[in-house]
């Protein structure tokens, strides 16, 4: 088994940059969303297509990122 069709792309969710890394393992697509800087994983999902796995990851990342409070300094 190998990770195939590995791809990364950046997008924005709830005002925060998000990096999506997706790839196929056998018949299943896997996706990991991280918060770019600092790079912590936010979601790890699967789907029968890349789009499905990415959508799940983006939904979960959005839920978490929406809770982040920005303070004036």
């Amino acid at each position, binding site marked *: *088994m190998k990770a195939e069709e590995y791809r990364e792309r950046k997008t924005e969710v709830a005002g925060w940059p998000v990096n999506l890394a997706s790839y196929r393992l056998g018949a299943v697509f896997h996706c990991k969303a991280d918060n770019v800087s600092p790079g912590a994983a936010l979601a790890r999902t699967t789907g029968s297509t890349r789009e499905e796995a990415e959508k799940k990851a983006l939904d979960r990342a959005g839920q978490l990122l929406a*809770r982040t409070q920005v303070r004036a300094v």
Partner: protein
Amino acid sequence: MADYAHPETLVSTDWVAQHESDPKVRVVEVDMDTRAYDEGHIPGAIGWAWNSQLCDTVRRDILPKAQLEQLLGSSGISNDTTVVIYGDNNNWFAAWALWQLKIYGHQDVRLMNGGRKKWLAEGRELTLEVPKVPAVTYRATGPDNSLRAFLPQVEAALEGGGHALVDVRSPQEFTGEILAPPGLPETCQRGGHIPTARSIPWSKACNDDGTFKSADELRSLYGAEGVDGSKPVIVYCRIGERSSHTWYVLKYLLGFDRVTNYDGSWTEWGNLVGAPVEKGAVAKANA
């Protein structure tokens, strides 16, 4: 790997692929979220969970020596085993494991350059099989606390000067705009950074593929902030895992002798009553 001070502590994905069946080598994937290991890992690799197997689960601390010995022994790791560690999140938690193994005196422990991300991106072989390894007896030494900074040492460094403090969190954590990485739980009462700390996010030490930048690039990166190895360095982040990544860079890639990881980090400092805190823009180098 040329030009690094200690290239023997870093191996490539090629090297790991070539040593998959080497009985003297034990490959370990270390993650916060062990679903990564479960979805597929390097053949022959065992998996360690950072939060349950590499930390004291009762008090906030690294593993007690006896538990470390038990973990390594049950993982088939002897004192003379070459341990190669890799993981998700650009090797943050792998670096934590390496730091801890060094604290307890393991001689030959190495990071896989680029971590899990590079292995996946290169389309290398993965397996779901969890290897059955024969348990052995492991005897740790130490702990060598010269690799670790505790709160009193950070306070003393702040009072006495003569140290370089490096904050490896993201710029917005450093300024105090956010109290934790976006999307993660806030674990402190106050935002900002330890006075005099320089902001050098851990990720600046890496290329896009997750591998470490060249020694020259790293020297320039840290040197530009006055961190050149001429004085002791204390690195910190939020919980000590990102800073163990930078600790590795300074200690083994640049060869600085006096580098300590303040694993209490901002979760400790940002909760202290009365501790000095700076907020706002990244400080200019005062060297």
